[in-house]
């Protein structure tokens, strides 16, 4: 049964290899890739059920006993994000398959895509700081290839910025791992949480902020986000949607995981809340200044990351639980908004707000898909964004952080403003061309499915919030409950 926890990593890797074996037969590649992604969703759902009812699962992969060997740990937090990530991976893959251009011109697309999925799963499941580094590298290397394979000269240059930032962050990550190993003598997360107690508190805090900064670059928090809005819009739509939905959230996952486990909170963290507030406001103001759908949405990625950091900054279980709910909502909604942006580009030829007009009349379907996703992003009831933001605001009031809650609400209003800007510019108005364009039905179907998932997130809000609360309590519990042994821990 414990072997189940390795499948989310193994399935995509095998499928990726298989798509290369079948060579140029695109239909076969698509079949393998889709089946593997669907299989990962099923495995993640089963894992979620087992972990929630029977406790965390821990596997020693290499056969070495826990503190030395590599460990995979499936607990409530990682399994929930695993399920949401696999759903997003599957939906975006269906979109990419319908968007013929993505995989027909690029034989390795499915292999690289599956490797990215394996990297994401490994990052979520690993119980080891160095394996987390390796997982990030797998994920990022796959993302470099996806970002650059179809790029022209100018796009290549932008992509280089992304790769350079990734490399610098990796070097800093490696240095931090070296320093942590130097003072504590272990890279196993569960082992470290006990060993760091013997380390000088100032040194420990310094290491904590170094890790925060490293993952902050990957998550695009306030002073470290400049690479994101330039590089993401360059890629083909399915790739951008995947990056937007998943990659930064894995950074946030790593922040929450390491900060709660290794550097126990001392209550409210004013520094983290300040970073969160600045991330929200600067991100959303950047979005307002933009005139292209994908660039607007890219700045919103940055802005929404601030909400997650805010939840962590409260230093309470309720805050972490709210952040978890918000991550779940963001992965789905952000990916679907980018898919809608891609639909507009596909049907109108461009995503520039001034150049497109009257899409609501020309393709009502696309408008109908945009509206729920945009309102959800702004936090309107009854959509999933409302659930996440309500939980965050409640946690903020409980923690007595009035100022940051006020800032987050202002950022929400500005988010709504920038969504109305897209709506008024692209969807309303009279169409400026009579040329009949075809609505891409397959792609619209995949987008609709993902938006339906976000509606489901809102419908199951009650159990989801309860589950996130249990996951947050696990995270903040004493380290001895963390899996340090082979098999199950109750």
């Amino acid at each position, binding site marked *: 049964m414990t072997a189940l926890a390795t499948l989310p990593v193994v399935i995509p890797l095998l499928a990726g290899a298989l798509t290369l074996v079948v060579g140029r037969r695109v239909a076969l590649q698509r079949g393998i890739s889709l089946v593997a992604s669907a299989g990962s969703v099923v495995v993640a759902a089963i894992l979620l059920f087992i972990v929630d009812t029977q406790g965390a699962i821990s596997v020693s992969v290499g056969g070495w006993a826990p503190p*030395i060997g590599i460990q995979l740990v499936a607990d409530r937090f990682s399994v929930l994000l695993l399920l949401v990530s696999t759903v997003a991976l599957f939906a975006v893959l269906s979109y990419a398959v319908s968007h013929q251009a993505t995989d027909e011109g690029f034989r390795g697309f499915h292999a690289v895509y599956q490797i990215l999925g394996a990297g994401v799963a490994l990052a979520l499941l690993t119980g080891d700081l*160095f394996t987390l*580094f*390796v997982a990030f*590298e797998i994920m990022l*290397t796959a993302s*470099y*290839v996806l970002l*650059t394979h179809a790029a*022209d*000269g*100018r796009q*290549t*240059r*932008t*992509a*280089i*910025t992304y*790769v*350079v930032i*990734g*490399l*610098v962050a*990796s*070097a*800093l990550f*490696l*240095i931090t*791992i*070296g*320093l942590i*190993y*130097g003072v504590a003598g272990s*890279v196993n997360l569960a082992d470290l949480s006990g060993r760091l107690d013997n380390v000088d508190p100032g040194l420990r805090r310094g290491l904590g902020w170094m890790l925060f900064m490293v993952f902050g670059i990957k998550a695009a928090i306030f002073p470290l986000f*400049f690479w994101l*809005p*330039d590089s993401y819009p360059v890629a083909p739509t399915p790739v951008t949607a995947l990056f937007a939905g998943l990659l930064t959230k894995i950074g946030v996952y790593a922040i929450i995981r390491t900060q709660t486990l290794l550097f126990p909170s001392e209550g409210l963290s004013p520094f983290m809340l300040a970073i969160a507030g600045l991330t929200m406001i600067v991100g959303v103001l950047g979005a307002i200044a933009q005139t292209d759908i994908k660039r607007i949405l890219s700045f919103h990625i940055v802005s929404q990351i601030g909400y997650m950091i805010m939840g962590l900054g409260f230093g309470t279980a309720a805050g972490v639980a709210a952040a978890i709910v918000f991550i779940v909502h963001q992965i789905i909604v952000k990916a679907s908004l980018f898919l809608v942006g891609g639909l507009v580009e596909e049907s109108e030829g461009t995503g520039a707000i001034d150049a497109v007009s009257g899409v609501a009349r020309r393709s009502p379907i696309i408008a109908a898909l945009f509206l729920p996703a945009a309102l959800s992003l702004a936090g309107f009831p009854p959509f999933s964004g409302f659930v996440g933001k309500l939980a965050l605001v409640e946690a903020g009031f409980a923690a007595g952080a009035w100022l940051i809650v006020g800032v987050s609400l202002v950022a929400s209003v500005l988010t709504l403003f920038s969504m109305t800007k897209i709506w008024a510019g692209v969807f309303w108005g009279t169409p400026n061309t009579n040329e009949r364009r075809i609505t891409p039905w397959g792609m619209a179907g995949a987008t609709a499915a993902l938006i339906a998932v976000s509606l489901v997130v809102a419908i199951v809000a009650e159990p989801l919030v309860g589950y996130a609360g249990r996951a947050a309590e696990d995270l903040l519990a004493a380290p001895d409950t963390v899996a340090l042994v082979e098999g199950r821990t109750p």
Partner: protein
Amino acid sequence: MTWTIALAAGILFGAGTYLILQRLLSRIIVGLGLIAHAANLILLGSGGAPGAPPVLEDGSVGPYSDPLEQALVLTAIVITFGITAFLLALAYRSWTEQGSDEVEDDTEDQRIARRREARS
């Protein structure tokens, strides 16, 4: 961590940072290589003072060096090697398509510059 390793890592890191801040892509890549070396040295130094080889052949139990961080360094070297090679390929492609090795201003800088020109 011994002084020599710390000093070497510091110098490598300083030189790498200087090179990364340059406008020429080739220098940035060399700078990244230096920073990666600094990171590897720090990782190596984190294992403590060197001792006898970690594999005990004659059953003697004495000071022996920690094998784990060497395994970590090997993994890290392989990864940075691969990505640096990829980055070099990208730089070459960008050079063949654009004919220069210089990193331009980013999109936002260009927009602000255009706005200023339009106003004057």
